[in-house]
């Protein structure tokens, strides 16, 4: 075999390629073009693209909407940050409660206060959901749906164990009591009633709030002390020792709370800490019928742990050349009836009351369950916490690691509490 490569041909070819590249149109953002970027799978993409089509037909037929998305949450932020660093931020981007503080304070996203009532219609919007998008008093992000933390429950397993389903007033003690009968029945060959939630930040936050504390204070400091954490770790030590929750070996299979690696999906536990808008996603890959219940109470009668969290937001880039169009799009997204019907409750419970009322009759059973759950939290509901500080992601990471140290016996609860408190304080100091 001889390689038929003429050097001249090769040089010509490569020059042509380079020339073609230089002449290729640069994808600048014109006024007639909107770049949309979000994370989520195909299910969410289909709904979002439908809304974009509705926007084009109802509001602005001349606009071109480039809808980009990534299935992986981590991929999304990597690509977004790369684009921001390159000065190529998308016009409308999806934002998360954990990161809004950084993007707002570093000036990546636009403050929208001037547009309220002038292009951005928030007249029918839940007040607390508006507040959730404020940093330093200014509005930077519009909530696309409220959700709340919720436990996924495997009803079939409970039936097999002959144990009653958890009710809204169950506390950790109640789970412990139920586990006695549970473990005696030993359903599914070693399935436990609870996952090990010691490293689960939402679970810890929920428990703290019920005791009158908080994860973070309004000025970005830790809202808990080392003693709180020691007590939390001790609670789980106790549950672990009594076989109420899964073993550390099993819990460590959970890779960062990805749905497919949660204890309920892997069949190791009958309940799992999750979010209310994830029921459908969990049901899709779980054979057994699932339902939802609230996070356990810290002790009998304690409440105020839950809150209606903005599950995700739309933010607008501060460097966009299409400010008005972007605002129009966001306002349409949250207010238009057909758009609301297309979106359903996939991103969370819609925040505009008229949308909620319109879609309620059309929801599937599980979606209705989620809607009712978030609307009827009762005494479980507490006020929305302040926007988390910049180091929140890193601290969450560290909590997972520290909790594993305790679970595997590499560290005691008494040592881990102060150690983690110090590490978290350092992380906060470093990132400010």
């Amino acid at each position, binding site marked *: 075999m*001889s*390689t038929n490569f003429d050097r001249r041909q090769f040089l010509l070819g490569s020059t042509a390629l380079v020339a073609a590249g230089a002449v290729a149109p640069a994808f600048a953002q014109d006024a007639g073009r909107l770049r949309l970027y979000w994370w989520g799978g195909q299910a969410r993409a289909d709904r979002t693209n439908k809304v974009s089509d509705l926007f084009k037909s109802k509001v602005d037929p001349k606009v071109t909407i480039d809808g980009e998305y990534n*299935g992986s*949450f981590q991929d999304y932020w990597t690509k977004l940050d790369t684009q921001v660093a390159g000065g190529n931020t998308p016009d409308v981007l999806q934002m998360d409660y954990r990161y809004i503080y950084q993007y707002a304070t570093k000036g990546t996203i636009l403050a929208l206060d001037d547009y309220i009532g002038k292009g951005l219609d928030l007249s029918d919007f839940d007040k607390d959901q508006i507040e959730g998008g404020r940093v330093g008093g200014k509005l930077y992000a519009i909530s696309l749906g409220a959700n709340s933390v919720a436990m996924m429950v495997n009803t079939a397993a409970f039936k097999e164990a002959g144990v009653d389903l958890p009710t809204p007033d169950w506390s950790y003690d109640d789970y412990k009591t139920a586990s006695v009968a549970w473990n005696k029945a030993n359903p599914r060959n070693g399935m436990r009633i609870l996952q090990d939630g010691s490293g689960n930040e939402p679970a810890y936050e929920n428990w703290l709030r019920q005791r009158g504390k908080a994860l973070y204070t309004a000025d970005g400091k830790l809202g808990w002390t080392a003693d709180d954490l020691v007590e939390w770790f001790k609670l789980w030590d106790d549950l672990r020792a009594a076989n109420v929750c899964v073993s550390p070996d099993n819990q460590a299979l959970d890779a960062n709370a990805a749905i497919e690696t949660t204890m309920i*999906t892997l069949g190791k536990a009958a309940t799992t800490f999750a979010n209310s808008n994830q029921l459908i996603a969990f049901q*899709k890959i779980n054979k057994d019928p699932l339902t939802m219940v609230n996070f356990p109470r810290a002790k009998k009668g304690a409440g105020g742990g839950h809150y209606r969290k903005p599950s995700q937001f739309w933010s607008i880039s501060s460097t966009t050349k299409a400010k008005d169009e972007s605002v129009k799009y966001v306002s349409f997204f949250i207010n238009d009836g057909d758009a609301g019907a297309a979106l359903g409750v996939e991103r969370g419970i819609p925040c505009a009351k008229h949308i909620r009322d319109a879609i309620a009759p059309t929801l599937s059973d599980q979606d209705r369950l989620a809607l009712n759950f978030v609307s009827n939290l009762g005494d479980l509901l507490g006020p929305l916490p302040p926007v988390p500080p910049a180091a929140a992601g890193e601290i969450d990471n560290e909590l997972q690691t520290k909790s594993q140290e305790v679970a595997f016996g590499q560290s005691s609860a008494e040592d881990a509490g102060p150690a983690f408190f110090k590490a978290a304080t350092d992380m906060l100091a470093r990132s400010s």
Partner: protein
Amino acid sequence: MTTPTAVVSAEPSRPWRKRIMPVVAHVLLIAASILMLYPLLWMLAASFRPEQEIFSSTSLIPSAVTLNGYISGWHGLPLSFGTFFINSFTISILCIVGNLAACSLTAFAFARLEFRGKRFWFALMLGTLMLPYQVTLIPQYVLFLKLGWVNTFLPLVVPKFLASDAFFTFLMVQFFRGIPKELDEAAQMDGCSPWRIYYKILLPLSVPVLTTAAIFTFIFTWDDFFGPLIYLNDIKTYTVALALRNFVDSTGISNWSGLFAMSVLSLVPVFVFFLFFQRLLIEGIATTGMKR
């Protein structure tokens, strides 16, 4: 004096051993093959399973065989997978052409020519392999953004034509150095220019390494999702590896059976490519073509 008995007693054991050895070897190889293949068989089974069974069942045989994974996977994204396969092919083929041409030229210089600064440039070339891509990503992105190449294949393909893959340059250098230099010297005495030596002597003798480079380039570019993730925005330009990543949303609704089905399909071109080029690799060259 002959000892017929001694000679006769040695012989019968040899044919017996000769027959048993291949069988033992085959048994071991088959066992090893099962170990190698098991994960793939599992993936194949998962692609035919109902989605709710994928994470709960432990057996290799699905309880119910369904083509739902393949159907929902092929049409799972707004564009059918046909588009993504074409994109992946285009990029991979272009990268192969670029790598083979550019890296062999570069490797020839390092392996066969003498010039000032050779060791220095070689060290630099090798050095480009040592820095993790995560930290050059942003500056490179800015560079390509300024060139207007974002949202095209160009950032993924053009560097190959400029010998950016030091892996292959180094590989070819090692292989070129294994070819006797007497061939070059003989050609030089006949008045051959370096280009002729490269083109007429070294390349034909390098079929094994060129084939290997082609196979590896294909696989690396076929499986690469990070480059496409950063540089491709429009779903029309997506590659198979990138499209696959949109099947799984770990915080929401995923399409796992679609993912497994399309992953299995994605293996087919790579495997076929490998089989085809494996023949070339084996039948490569039998002699050096040189009369000693």
